[in-house]
């Protein structure tokens, strides 16, 4: 798999395959879908099982559930304002889904569904549709004033309006590319250095010692990837909040 034919095959880890045997094949249920289901179950289990005790002094799972709840609640109220609390369920679901997806992808044999632009773009498109619908519902026609700042000279309108529209449309693209590119880059690097370990180990007597070098890099990279996995979920959630702020308040 890793070093067959003395070549580095870093991209085959992103290939989709069929999960759940013939049943999955009949509905094209890939391992990406399987991991999404696992993530959904894990998040649900954390929130429901962790909060079962409802203890005044929380246990480990309960404090994890409470910490994540308060983290997102703080982010939502700070970024959108008090009226933004109605978007809390959406942002919280999004954050937990992306975070668990990123983290789950770091386990051996697991698949990172956030490394597919189709998955991240679907999430970003959902955010985009939501912010547009919210802005239209709250502000009606005034939403279109967003594309032309008041006070700008009117003869600049043919330049400003297309630029603003392109800038607005680029939001879901940048949101999805950021997450997808970070996950792909991290996993490719992990795979490349892991391949180096195998290749260098086959170099005779000095091989095993040389292969310690990429091994140390990989150990550091795994730690770095945990950071990136959290950071990208955080960035995804906070940018969603910033966009929602713009939709609610229209600058």
């Amino acid at each position, binding site marked *: 798999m890793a070093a067959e034919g003395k070549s580095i095959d870093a991209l085959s880890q992103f290939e989709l395959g069929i999960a759940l045997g013939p049943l999955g094949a009949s509905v094209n249920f890939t391992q990406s879908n399987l991991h999404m289901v696992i993530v959904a179950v894990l998040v649900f289990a954390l929130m429901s099982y962790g909060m079962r005790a409802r203890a005044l002094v929380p246990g480990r799972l309960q404090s994890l559930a409470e910490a994540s709840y308060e983290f997102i609640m703080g*982010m939502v109220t*700070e*970024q959108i304002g008090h009226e933004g609390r109605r978007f809390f369920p959406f942002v919280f679901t999004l954050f937990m889904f992306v975070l668990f997806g990123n983290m789950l992808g770091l386990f051996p044999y697991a698949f990172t569904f956030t490394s597919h632009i189709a998955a991240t773009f679907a999430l970003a498109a959902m955010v985009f549709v939501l912010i547009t619908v919210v802005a239209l519902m709250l502000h009606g026609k005034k939403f279109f004033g967003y594309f032309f*700042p008041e006070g700008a000279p009117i003869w600049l309108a043919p*330049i400003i309006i*297309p*630029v*603003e529209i*392109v*800038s607005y*449309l*680029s939001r879901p*693209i*940048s949101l999805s*590319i*950021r997450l997808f*590119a*970070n996950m792909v880059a991290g996993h490719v690097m992990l795979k490349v250095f892991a391949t180096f370990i195998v290749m260098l180990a086959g170099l005779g007597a000095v091989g095993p010692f040389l292969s310690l070098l990429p091994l140390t890099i990989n150990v550091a990279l795994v730690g770095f990837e945990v950071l990136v996995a959290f*950071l990208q979920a*955080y*960035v995804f959630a*906070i940018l969603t909040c*910033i966009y929602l702020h*713009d939709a609610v308040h229209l*600058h």
Partner: protein
Amino acid sequence: MSEQDGFEKRLNEARARQGLDRAEGGKAGLPGGSYGVGFRAGVEVFSALLVGVVAGLLLDRWLGTWPWLFLLMFVMGSAAGLLNVFRLFKPRGLKRD
């Protein structure tokens, strides 16, 4: 007791009035770091450019004006990319987001 509570409340109100509690400026909470900021700026430019180019190509195919709208939208996309980067570094407090 109640007097102390009242004092806390008034102190907090005064602090809020003076804007003392809003410590974070800029895109509050977005993590920094030179690598991260550079990457984010690159993504912003790239995505705006992508939207501009794709929109130009689609409009050209629809209206049969190849390559003029493509060229125009390419320039618009670059401008939008620069605008995105500008907004990335502009403090949030500024009017007109």
